[in-house]
């Protein structure tokens, strides 16, 4: 009787495996964290958009969200805290053929790195900036951020946050971003579609994605992981083209989602080339 060859066990392959540095798995994200969902939306969008992934770079700052650059299997730069946008600017202006994806956290992009955001938007540098807004600095243990709602509790505001948070779409709009959208991580399809749109359009594009940090933010604000998701479902409305001034994040009222800005104006590289390279 012939000896039957032993069948190799079939390794189940995740559809995104080709885009993930699987040797880096398991990832650091906590159970219930919203970042992973957004990351996978981003990878799906990269695939679906049909952009040349060999000409795509993912850039992150530091933070739980900032781990994105280290996990994506494309060229990537895990920069220092707050500097993802200027690193990406350098890459884009030196090699305008690149597709730049900045994947980072609210603290990284709007507290320590806020200055870079407004200037890249003002200059309309052609890049897609995805901000995972979990309302705090998750990685360092849940301190107050520039996006923390008024009165919310964090480790550095034990009696409640005395400051007002940024309205990120308004900031992006006022700074000159040519595409501005906001979703929650529960709106997976919309997030994916939005990112896909960004990747195939020109100009500075910004997508804010609200995502839970149950471990550091939720716990201190009496929000259980599922409550947060329920809130994302019940307390949001989609209103494309809404007035950016009315987009404050306050879950006691309604939080407005949608695409708020989608306009065209010459990108930095286009104007620069015209003036200095006489093209």
């Amino acid at each position, binding site marked *: 009787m012939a000896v039957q060859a032993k069948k190799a066990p079939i390794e189940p392959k995740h559809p995104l495996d080709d885009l993930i540095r699987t040797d880096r798995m398991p990832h650091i994200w906590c159970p219930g964290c919203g970042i992973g969902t957004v990351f996978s939306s981003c990878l799906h969008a990269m695939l679906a958009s049909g952009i040349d992934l060999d000409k795509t770079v993912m850039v992150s700052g*530091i933070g739980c969200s900032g781990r994105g650059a280290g996990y994506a299997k494309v060229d990537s730069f895990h920069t*220092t805290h707050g500097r993802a946008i200027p690193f990406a600017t350098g890459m884009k202006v030196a090699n305008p053929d690149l597709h730049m994806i900045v994947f980072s956290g609210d603290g990284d992009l709007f507290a320590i790195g806020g200055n870079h955001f407004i200037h890249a938007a003002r200059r309309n540098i052609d890049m897609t900036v995805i901000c995972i807004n979990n309302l705090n600095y998750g990685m360092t243990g849940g301190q107050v951020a520039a996006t923390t709602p008024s009165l919310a509790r964090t*480790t*550095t*505001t034990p009696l409640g946050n005395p400051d007002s948070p940024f309205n990120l779409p308004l900031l992006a709009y006022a700074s000159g971003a040519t595409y501005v959208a906001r979703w929650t991580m529960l709106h997976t399809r919309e997030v994916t579609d939005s990112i896909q749109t960004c990747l195939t359009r020109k100009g500075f594009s910004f997508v804010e994605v609200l995502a839970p940090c149950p471990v550091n933010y939720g716990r201190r604000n009496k929000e259980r992981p599922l409550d947060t998701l329920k809130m994302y479902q019940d307390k949001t409305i989609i209103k494309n083209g809404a007035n950016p001034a009315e987009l404050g994040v306050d879950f006691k009222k309604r939080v407005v989602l949608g695409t708020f800005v989608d306009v065209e104006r010459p990108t930095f590289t286009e104007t620069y080339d015209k003036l200095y390279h006489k093209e």
Partner: protein
Amino acid sequence: MGERVGLEVSIAAAEAVKMANVDVIAAYPITPQTHIVEHLAEVVADGELDAEFIPVESEHSAMSVCCGSSAVGARTFTCTSSQGLALMNEIVFITASMRLPVVMVLANRSLSGPLSIWNDHSDVMSIRDCGWIQVFVENGQEVFDHIMFAFRVAESQKVSLPLIVNVDGFILTHVIEPVEFWDAETVKNYLPPFKPVNRLHPDNPVTMGAFGMPGIYTETRKAQDSALIEAKPEILKAWQEMADLTGRHYKPVESYHAEGAETLFLTMGSIGETVSVAVDELRAEGKSVGQLSLRLWRPFPFEEFRQAAAGAKRIIVLDRAVSMGGQGGPVATEIRSVLYKEKNMPVVTNFLCGLAGRDVTVEDYKAMFEKASKMSKRRVREEDYILYGVRE
């Protein structure tokens, strides 16, 4: 004296800052500094400390806020690590040149890249020449004591300079140790209320940070350097008075079995205690070995160091940072030049070790001793530095 309690060193540090009754704390979170700042946020919120806690948006802003609050006469504290210090760099030089007595705890952590959160001294060595008084500590008790010391020295009328207490990240910040607290009376006796030397006040309006033309810049630099050097008597006095009050004696250069020893280890920070154990074991084997620990790094204690090192044939300098393209580590490079004119200059052997938290054990220090004993006795050789344990 107060109670002796077991608690996390970060919490002890924050409690010391609380007892020092600071007016303003401005900080941005960074591992492994976070517990100190978070505890301070709590004691302010609980009303245990009447201070302003300002959770700024970056370290650059933290040090800027500190300069502002110190300039108007508030006792000011901040705390950072690694990249945070790197981002503060610009303002750190301003604090010193404006003679603003801000106190900082630096939870020492390696600089990127690669990105690392673990302990070494690459952060502090990057600002070696910034003009702050800089001290190193070895354990939780020393952290607590040196926060009192820091405010006392920095704010002293004869000094008025900022001061950094270097505390090894994780190895010290995150361990639980017994710490003897000071009672309120002792704090009161040791630390007078802050009377700023330089401050913005309408009675005598001044401009801080104004332009210094080439005709004056050199003189301002001389004045600043002299101020730092002349801080030493006040530093010694502050340690002496602490000894009188607490019974704990601190010196610019601590020594352990150093007298008459042929070989001396030179340590800074928490590795000192591990090296002491290695010294004990080596001495039990009949080796002539002792140890010096550099507690005061700036102003450099030249005399004390030369005295403590006198008679040694070899000094094994343990550096926790690399001086890229230079002659080993920043500490050894300096020690060689400090000893250069000595009649019987000891051989300086330099081991760079414990980078980014890599463990260095008693056995490792013993191995370094053996290795050094077999090395050349020539006084200075550029190749006399070894990146200990590196895999090539």
